[in-house]
């Protein structure tokens, strides 16, 4: 196998992982009938928290956990506004997208002052480093030169698929997104599940953001999520609201991201920005090709009011 292709596949899997976390976050939210376009913002706060905690404690793992906690906290604002106050989900998601990155930028400024010096934190080790393996074989790199977070992402996809199709609890959860009133008559706690979905969504989006500062880049910079939250939205649509489909979509977008980095390295005649456009243009093209077959949860985006008959 050519080195180019091998490196592309390795980088693709790594770049797909944050997208998988973010897409699953969106999937859990939409399956409970909540369209959350604020995950870009939640990921930003998760990314900063992950970076700070990892820097202070020296443990990237604690950073990831803190990122998840911060994501949950911010998403509780979304939960209260959209579930309890029945605010329009799209509008509120937008509000979160403005609020959360501003908060992240503020905390960063206050913590580090206005100095321009880049602070670097440690990255999470890969299995290969932990086990002390020296081999550079492609398969070794593919399966072992990965952080535990990559494994967590893929395991979560399987867990989610089993949960939504094989368990009673998962079917109840999906019922809330499809037809909440019928779900309520069956004794399902609709409001409770919607809040639960926001906890899961916030945690996963926070982890997705923290991945970027604990497993991918040593520093935090404003705007480091770079639209991944929105690409995750596209991945959920592309994946037809199924964990398996979402995984394929994320791998595709991850490879696009890896491809643009690789192409930048081997080409220096075209301005590098044209390669950076690849993931965004690919998202538009994919959405244009798959068209608008409605396959999402039926009550997605609509407020649920107990009192309405």
């Amino acid at each position: 196998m050519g080195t180019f292709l091998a490196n592309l596949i390795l980088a693709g899997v790594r770049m797909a992982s944050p997208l998988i976390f973010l897409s699953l976050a969106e999937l859990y939210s939409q399956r409970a009938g909540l369209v959350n376009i604020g995950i870009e913002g939640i990921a930003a706060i998760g990314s900063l928290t992950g970076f700070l905690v990892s820097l202070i404690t020296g443990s990237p793992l604690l950073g990831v956990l803190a990122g998840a906690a911060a994501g949950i906290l911010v998403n509780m604002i979304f939960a209260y506004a959209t579930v309890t106050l029945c605010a329009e989900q799209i509008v509120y998601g937008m509000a979160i997208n403005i609020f959360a990155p501003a908060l992240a930028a503020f905390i960063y400024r206050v913590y580090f002052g206005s100095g321009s010096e880049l602070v670097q934190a440690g990255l999470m080790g890969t299995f290969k480093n932990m086990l002390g393996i020296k081999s550079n074989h492609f398969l070794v790199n593919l399966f072992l030169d990965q952080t535990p977070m990559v494994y967590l992402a893929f395991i979560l996809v399987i867990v989610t698929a089993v949960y939504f199709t094989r368990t009673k609890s998962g079917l109840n959860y999906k019922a809330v997104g499809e037809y909440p009133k019928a779900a309520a008559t069956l004794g399902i706690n609709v409001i409770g599940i919607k809040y639960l979905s926001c906890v899961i969504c916030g945690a996963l989006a926070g982890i997705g953001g923290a991945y970027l500062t604990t497993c991918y880049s040593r520093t935090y910079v404003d705007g480091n999520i770079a639209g991944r939250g929105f690409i995750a939205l596209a991945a959920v649509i592309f994946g037809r609201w199924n964990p398996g489909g979402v995984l394929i979509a994320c791998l595709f977008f991850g490879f696009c991201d890896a491809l643009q980095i690789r192409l930048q390295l081997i080409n220096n005649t075209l301005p590098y920005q044209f390669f950076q456009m690849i993931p965004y243009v690919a998202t538009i093209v994919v959405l244009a090709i798959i068209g608008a077959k409605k396959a999402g949860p039926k009550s997605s985006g609509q407020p649920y009011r107990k009192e309405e008959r």
Partner: protein
Amino acid sequence: MKRKDFGALIIVPVLSIIISFLIGCIIIAALGASPAEALRYLWKGAFGNIRNLGTTFSRSTPLIFTTLCACFAYRCGVFNLGGEGQFLIGSILACYIATKSPLTGVPAMLLCALAGAAGGGLWAAAAGLLKIWRGQNEMIITIMLNYVATLLMGVVYTNWLRDGSVPQTIAVPDETKLPSFLGLRATIAFPVAILVGIAVFYFLFSTSGGFQLRAVGLNMTAAKVNGFNVKRYIMMSFIVSGAIAGLGGALELLGTQLRLINGFGAGYGFDGVAMALIASLHPIAGIVVAIFFAALRVGSTTMQTATGVPTSVSDIIQALVIVFTVAGMAMVKLPEFKNRFLRKAGMEG
């Protein structure tokens, strides 16, 4: 619109602003500065003298354009989140015309404005076509186009129009700079922005086209049943909102920034969305909100110099205003809330 609802549309944002400022004061106090002092410098920096007032107007101009862009699109139910990309395309075209065409002075300004509006409109039209023909989610498409436009601007200032070794474009020639407005630091782009706002207001609320466009936004099915050409209005709202943002980008380049450089226009699109939502999609209220936000930004620089409170405090206050306003608007619409506060008697649920 009912009078009661209209009251809420004013009271909720004003209350949100007050609460956000209170939280801002707590943060300032926690940072070890005096909130009263900081607020005094904030006010002084934004409105303290004619010079600062001009700066505030100048800073508000691009925000007014992106706010109007969002107002216009959302009134038709189109979630155009691409104000930033459309703004940048407008400024890129204006940059080319101002620096590369033989025209200078007023003809160049007019051509720049025209090309900026056309470019912004076309950039938005791409998203509109995908929505209408492929039924695609315009939010994702317009955001992706923002990133593409930002990168395209990057190509322009690092390659195509690069000014020597510095990653920025060559400057707009002096003859093509927009003239100052009443001798202030703001240029004539500011009154143009306000005129565009008045035009949007007139179109939306005083013409049958505006009525039909709003009808499409309120209830697409009902509008369709009534025989309105829904697709035409959706397409129109994309193109016009994009053109407003593109015009804003062109005028910002000719009036204030004069060069494309890293960070040009960054965040203006989402800012416009926030301001349009705080203003309940009312164009004139949108202008007021945009000036208010610009004042916060300009004033916060003075505050930082005088008291050491970082300018990002004002970003937090702005973000809190949007978080509270949108939640507050939803709360006053809740049946429970209406029952308790507005009509005490009867009516279950």
